[in-house]
């Protein structure tokens, strides 16, 4: 190429390169996009779905809490609900009346109604996984109840401490690390477990509070009676049943248990904590156990799981025999009875009692998964899978069909490490009854 032609050639090439590299066909001004942060699916008429989008209003979110403008979830978000034959056709319909183009890449939460979840959500999960804009780390929720519960839940979400509702979802749904009352149920984990031969999927339970004021509060829907307790502990509730009132109506607590793509049951808060312990994903949490020496009192502990559980699966007489050993550590938070559990001779009483408390809970929860739900939520199939040499041998074994016949042996190793800031509990002194 001659030197005269070289320069124009380079200019043309540079120009074409610039056009290509900026992706001019795909250019989308940030200002022309609208970002839904949550999507809800309810059952529609016939085969349709009713889809609700919770859309962040950028100006309000960016405004923060100035003059009370931000902060209120009702102000920083907008809602729309549409009935459509599929997710993408619904998005198309919404695009006709929303002034900006929908961009689903900021979706933090996907909520399915219980009705839809019980019918099976495989087709929706596949669509979400296939779509490039949907994030695999978005959380999966199931809204409890009948009717348009996903829509009802999303409309009830009114974050007070966050001006950014997306951040609210992230914070609330990652709180399982310090509450243990929900779990990391991302879409991708759900999908992997849905098609797995060795474990089953879970989703976080969501609902709105049933109590309007403090006088209405009751524990009628608590699960404590099923567990043979005289009074409810903090984990004996599912979302919507928590005995609380306040401006935040939305609740998440417990897990929806699936068999394949169909919801088959629920875990309450305590069962969710035990599920996390079995997986080795329990971070830390305040857990209340009954006082072993004083029936009317409880001992709140700060419990941690610092070691993964030991899990062993064997086949005895054609039935799975599952052995689990869970390792827990705790710090004492309070001793209501004033009994000196901090002392070396009494601490073992508390430890043994806690071990039995958790062993009983784990056994109850595991039997529920096998006999009632018929779903291997803890993924013991993964241990079993390792005993086979080839994939065909493993699939021919049909673990999911064998799991309901499982027998369980549970052991808990519980150690109290620290007494908090008090080394012993001194009783109150006085002349009234109950005081020394």
């Amino acid at each position, binding site marked *: *190429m001659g030197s005269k032609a070289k320069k124009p050639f380079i200019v043309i*090439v540079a120009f*074409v*390169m610039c056009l*290509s*590299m900026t*992706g*001019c*066909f*795909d250019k989308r001004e940030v200002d022309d996009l609208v970002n839904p942060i949550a999507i809800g699916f309810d059952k529609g008429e016939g085969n349709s779905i009713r889809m609700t989008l919770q859309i962040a209003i950028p100006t309000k979110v960016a405004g923060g809490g100035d003059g009370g403008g931000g902060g209120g979830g009702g102000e920083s978000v907008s809602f729309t609900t549409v009935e459509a034959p599929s997710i993408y056709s619904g998005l198309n319909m919404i695009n006709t009346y929303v002034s900006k183009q929908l961009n689903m890449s900021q979706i933090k939460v996907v909520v399915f109604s219980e009705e839809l979840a019980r019918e099976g959500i495989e087709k929706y999960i596949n669509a979400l996984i296939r779509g*490039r804009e949907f*994030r*695999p*780390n978005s959380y999966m929720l199931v809204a409890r109840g009948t009717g348009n519960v996903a829509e009802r839940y999303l409309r009830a979400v009114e974050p007070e401490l966050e001006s950014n509702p997306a*951040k609210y979802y*992230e914070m609330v749904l990652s709180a399982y690390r310090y509450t243990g009352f929900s779990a990391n149920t991302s879409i*991708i984990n759900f*999908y*992997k477990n849905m*098609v*797995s031969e*060795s474990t089953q999927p879970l989703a976080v339970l969501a609902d709105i509070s049933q109590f309007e004021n403090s006088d209405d509060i009751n524990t009628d829907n608590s699960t404590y009676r099923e567990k043979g307790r005289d009074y409810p502990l903090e984990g004996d509730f599912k979302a919507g049943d928590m005995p609380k009132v306040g401006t935040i109506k939305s609740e998440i607590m417990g897990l929806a248990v699936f068999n394949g793509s169909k919801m088959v049951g629920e875990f309450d808060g305590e069962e969710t904590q035990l599920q996390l312990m079995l997986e080795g994903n329990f971070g830390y949490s305040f857990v209340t156990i009954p006082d072993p020496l004083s029936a009317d009192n409880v001992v709140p502990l700060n419990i941690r799981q610092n070691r993964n559980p030991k899990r062993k699966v064997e086949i005895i007489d054609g039935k799975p025999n599952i052995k689990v050993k869970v390792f827990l550590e705790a710090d004492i938070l309070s001793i209501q009875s004033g009994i000196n559990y901090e002392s070396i001779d009494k601490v073992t009483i508390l430890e043994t009692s806690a071990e039995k408390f958790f062993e009983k809970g784990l056994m109850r929860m595991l039997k529920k998964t096998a006999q009632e739900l018929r779903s291997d939520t803890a*993924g013991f199939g*993964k*241990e079993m*899978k*390792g005993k*086979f*040499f*080839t*994939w*065909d*041998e*493993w699939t021919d074994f049909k673990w999911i069909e064998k799991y309901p016949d499982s027998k369980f042996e549970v052991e808990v190793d519980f150690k109290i490490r620290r007494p908090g800031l008090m080394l012993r509990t001194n009783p109150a002194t006085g002349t009234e009854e109950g005081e020394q």
Partner: protein
Amino acid sequence: MNNNITFGSHEAICLLITMISTKAILNFPSTMAKIGGPAAWFVAIYVSVLAIIAFYIISKLYSKFEGKDIIDIGEILGGKTLKILLGILIIIFLTALLSFYLRNFSEEMKTMGFAMSPIGFIMLFFVLGMVISAYHGIEPLIRFQSILVPITVISFTLFVIALIPSMSIDSIMPILGTGPYNIFVKGALRISDFAEIIFLFLLPPFIKKRDVFNKVGFTGLTICSMVLVSLTFSFVSVYPYPVSTDDLLPAYELARIIKFGRFFERAESILVITWATIGFMYLSTVFYFLLHVFGKTFDLYYYKPLILPFALVVMSISLIPPRLMNSILLEAETFRNLAWLIAFVLPVLLLIIARAAVSRKKRKTSP
């Protein structure tokens, strides 16, 4: 053709890494998963070992042909006729390779980030890169790779480390995956995934010395094996079988799940840039060698007039498959099942016959 350019082992190793390891970000991990199931990583190790053994045999046979590429050896053995035949075979091989990868890179780039852009437009983006680099010749291409490949390998290592929290050893069980037959018999054919080793047999005129040739081969193949095995292992331990078989873009899917707290996520946006860079390096190198082989086969002194016509031909061929699935299937099932014949069997046969011929000639000429 001008073969006065010489480069060292570092440059040649970088070239080999680009050519062989590129498929780690394409469909290599999911192809391994289709063959071996949970034992996909084992298939990757097996194929890598086979490729290194094959190269060991070829390097031994190559000992008498220092500084000669396989076209030169063909000429020594069968004169112009064999040289042209051999050259045409390699040209077909390189054209097919370039067409498949041009289409796949462009289509996958479209899927990842340019959904609205016409495929021809994205392809043009890569073709322009190929054309410009071909005009500048091999030296800037090699230099560019010698700088970028070490950076890419370090980034890749960080990428794999970032995936560790998402990995689960349970996912690679049962240990023999879909069974020994699939791993050892069907897996053996996947030695074709190392078919780009053919570039090493075109390099001797540029690297001259035999010990450099051996060093480049063994070091390059070892690094490539590590890259391919580690990414396959990461993939199947993050996405358990059978999920591992349904992903179009394994590396992209892996990047999408990387998340540290609330402040670091969407690592795939970095991958798109890396993807484009690797795509440029790969396609430009194949394109240059396609022109180089054509020029050498037909004794052309200048290759530059061939650049635009060849770019047009390659782009047209790459658009023949009506859909991406056809292109992937053709590359993964048909092309790769035959590529080992050109990349491994052909050089071995050629070298055995050529060695015999050279020895016989020596015996005849010696008193």
